[in-house]
């Protein structure tokens, strides 16, 4: 009964999405107010039906309805309630349904918060968003239906993948989806603008907010993913340049380029074609990422069920959305010509440079991700590892850090480059001194670590200096920018320390043995067995002392989930202000209770994620810009006046 309702709601959503795609666009083509006015109500109803089908799926999980294949494969009688709820989006089918739900939520939000757009604009935007929803609802229905039933009904389910029984993994996919889907708003705006052959500042200003929110979600999703990999995979790494990670990082990079270019194009008639193109690229990379994760085209440490039909389906969606948008771009972009000239000595130029650096980084990562595929196509197997990405990224991020303070120093429109450089001189001296001090304390440091720390201090001192020397009151835009840039600095310094000053040791330890690592004494007192809700674990005990004083006792676990026949490593981490102490269990070596124990000391790793949180906080603060609000209000009044005149 219930699975049938879920299925029915999906079919209804498919029809609604089709209506949302066709009716408003038809209205635009025929200049029919009535048809265009269907856009907003359709958007809201679509959200209600999709949301309802998602709720049905959650209820099926809570009720342990194993007659549904997806529930039987991802839940079990012993699975705790909290994971039964989150299992709804734990595996492929449910996670795509969640994508659609989030998509519908955004469409509904766009319909609601778009008072400053004229009817002809919003109807086109919603129509494009409807087309995206249509494709993904069809994908759920025809290629990954979570409501498929099985008979006979199994007595018990197969249990949720233990890797996903964790807070970080519960939150990671929804956040990424909010980010992916959020970027579809800027994409829809670009396509709508290309269809009409016109775009203006006010329209870009409107889309900028959505981009900022999307980018903030994407950032949070990536931070959580990194944090999860750090404590859950038991290797102590925080970023692996794995294809699945890159899939979320690529839209982030393109999105970073986009939000910086939008800062220019919402102010003046410039970089319009570039803004439109970046928005198309950013969302295309979201779909490409989904394809890479779901098609099995690329081997990855993250194992997901790979299915060729699903891969083809997503590829077709990618071809329709991005191919369509880029075709429109090819023939219409010249109509969006930017009329304002850009002075070379201005903030605009530097923001353009920023976007070029980030888009180069995007393509570097994309190439590295796809390179193994190119070679495989000609019959060779190669792997592009972390060294390639690490080096390329280092090379690209140095110019980024170097020009960042110059960009925020220069004024809009026109400034004196030489004077700006002179004003940056004190920050240059301060950052040099700070870097020397750090080097004296922590030497030896290699060239990359020094460059990263130098770059971090350069951005930090300049951003703080500019903050205190600003003329007048700080606007939300300025506060947001400063906070985000301090985040960049914090990230650069912390990342350099974590990467180059960490200590990693694999030690063989018998009970009672004490080893010294990085100034701490680690005493292994043995392993015992514990039984939890749906797993058994061998739990080790390691006492950590500094100068004889007990700091903490760490209890790393080796878990075993009988249903899935899967072992899991659960690291134990002592979180400190300046460093993490990370202990995980390897293998039992002999009968006398000796174990291989991994001990890592990771300096400043928390600060690295904190830097990311500062960046996204900056993007959110930027939303409260009084200037943008003033202009939006003016525009809304204008639109309303227009509508009154029409009727």
């Amino acid at each position: 009964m219930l699975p049938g309702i879920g299925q029915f709601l999906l079919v209804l959503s498919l029809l609604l999405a089709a209506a949302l795609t066709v009716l408003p666009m038809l209205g635009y083509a025929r200049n029919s107010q009535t048809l265009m006015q269907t856009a907003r109500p359709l958007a809201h109803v679509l959200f209600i039906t999709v949301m309802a089908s998602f709720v049905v799926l959650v209820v099926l999980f809570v009720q342990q309805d194993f007659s549904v294949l997806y529930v039987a494969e991802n839940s079990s009688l012993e699975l705790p309630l909290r994971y039964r709820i989150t299992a709804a989006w734990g595996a492929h089918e449910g996670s795509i349904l969640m994508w659609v739900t989030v998509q519908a939520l955004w469409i509904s939000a766009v319909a609601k918060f778009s008072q400053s757009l004229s009817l002809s604009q919003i109807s086109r935007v919603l129509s494009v968003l409807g087309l995206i929803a249509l494709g993904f609802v069809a994908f759920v229905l025809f290629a990954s239906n979570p409501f498929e039933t099985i008979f006979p009904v199994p007595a018990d389910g197969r249990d949720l993948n233990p890797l996903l029984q964790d807070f970080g993994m519960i939150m990671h996919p929804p956040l990424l989806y909010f980010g992916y889907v959020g970027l579809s708003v800027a994409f829809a705006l670009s396509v709508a603008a290309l269809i009409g052959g016109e775009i203006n500042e006010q329209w870009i200003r409107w889309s900028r907010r959505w981009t900022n929110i999307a980018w903030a979600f994407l950032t949070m999703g990536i931070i959580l993913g990194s944090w999860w990999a750090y404590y859950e995979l038991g290797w102590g790494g925080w970023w692996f340049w794995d294809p699945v990670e890159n899939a979320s990082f690529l839209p982030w990079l393109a999105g970073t380029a986009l939000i910086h270019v939008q800062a220019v194009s919402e102010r003046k008639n410039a970089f319009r074609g570039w803004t439109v193109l970046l928005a198309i690229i950013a969302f295309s990379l979201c779909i490409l990422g989904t394809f890479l994760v779901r098609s099995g085209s690329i081997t990855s440490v993250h194992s997901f069920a790979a299915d060729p039909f699903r891969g083809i389906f997503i590829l077709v969606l990618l071809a329709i959305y991005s191919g369509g948008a880029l075709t429109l771009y090819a023939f219409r972009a010249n109509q969006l010509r930017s009329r304002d000239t850009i002075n070379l000595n201005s903030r605009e130029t530097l923001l353009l440079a920023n976007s070029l650096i980030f888009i180069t980084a995007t393509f570097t990562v994309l190439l590295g991700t796809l390179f193994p595929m190119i070679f495989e196509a000609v019959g060779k197997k190669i792997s592009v590892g972390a060294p390639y990405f690490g080096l390329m990224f280092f090379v690209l991020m140095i110019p980024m850090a170097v020009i960042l303070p110059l960009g925020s120093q220069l004024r809009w429109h026109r400034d004196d480059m030489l004077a700006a450089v002179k004003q940056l001189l004190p920050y240059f001296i301060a950052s040099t001194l700070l870097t020397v001090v750090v080097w004296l304390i922590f030497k030896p440091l290699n060239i990359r670590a020094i460059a990263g720390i130098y770059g971090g201090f350069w951005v930090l001192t300049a951003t703080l200096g500019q903050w205190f020397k600003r003329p007048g009151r700080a606007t939300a835009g300025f506060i947001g920018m400063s906070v985000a840039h301090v985040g960049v600095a914090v990230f650069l310094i912390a990342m350099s320390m974590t990467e180059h000053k960490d200590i990693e040791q694999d030690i063989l330890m018998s009970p009672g043995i004490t080893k010294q690592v990085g100034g701490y004494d680690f005493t292994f007192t043995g392993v015992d067995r514990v039984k939890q809700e749906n797993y058994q674990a061998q739990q080790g005990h390691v006492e950590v002392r500094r100068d004889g004083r007990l700091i903490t006792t760490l209890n790393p676990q080796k878990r075993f989930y009988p249903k899935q026949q899967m072992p899991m490593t659960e690291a134990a981490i002592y979180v400190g202000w300046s460093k993490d102490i990370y202990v995980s269990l390897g293998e039992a070596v002999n009968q006398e209770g000796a174990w291989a124990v991994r001990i890592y000391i990771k300096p400043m790793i928390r600060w690295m994620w904190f830097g990311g949180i500062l960046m996204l906080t900056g993007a959110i603060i930027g939303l409260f810009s009084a200037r943008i609000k003033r202009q939006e209000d003016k525009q809304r009044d204008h639109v309303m006046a227009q509508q009154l005149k029409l009727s």
Partner: protein
Amino acid sequence: MKKIVITLIPLAIFVGLLTLLFLNMGYHNETVPSPLIGKPVPAFELPQLYEKGTLTEQDFLGEPWLLNVWGSWCPNCLYEHPVVTDLAQSGQLKVVGLNWKDEFENADAWLKRLGNPYDTILVDYKGNVAIDFGVYGAPESFLIDANGIIVHKIVGELTPDNVQNEILPKLAQLK
């Protein structure tokens, strides 16, 4: 005209990328499920669930057989159990079970509860032989001819559909 050429560049790059992705998918489709098809069964020596003594791949020469990988912990094995039973009772070929990553008590209880469709049950509790067979997960089934060559592989559960349209036609060709 020149302007359009420039704005066409992103589309051209995209089409190239799409082609690459598509070709690469096809490449995977052909190779992923079937590295063992047409090759001899990997050598093994395994104990049996209910009989004493071990069996090797040599013991199965002389007639076509189906190796069905299952475990009592696997819900989809429960799902395919009636299909396996039907196929075994039809007497068209010998169905051999590979009890994978299981425990005797659980496997025994499972068979007692549902019935034992298998002619012989091999036991691979460590999963080493399953690795040689390239097993992704349970259930999986391998159709093997009288000379010990793997003819076909089904990933996932046996269904009336894939038994009718894949297993039985292949079997008919062997005879």
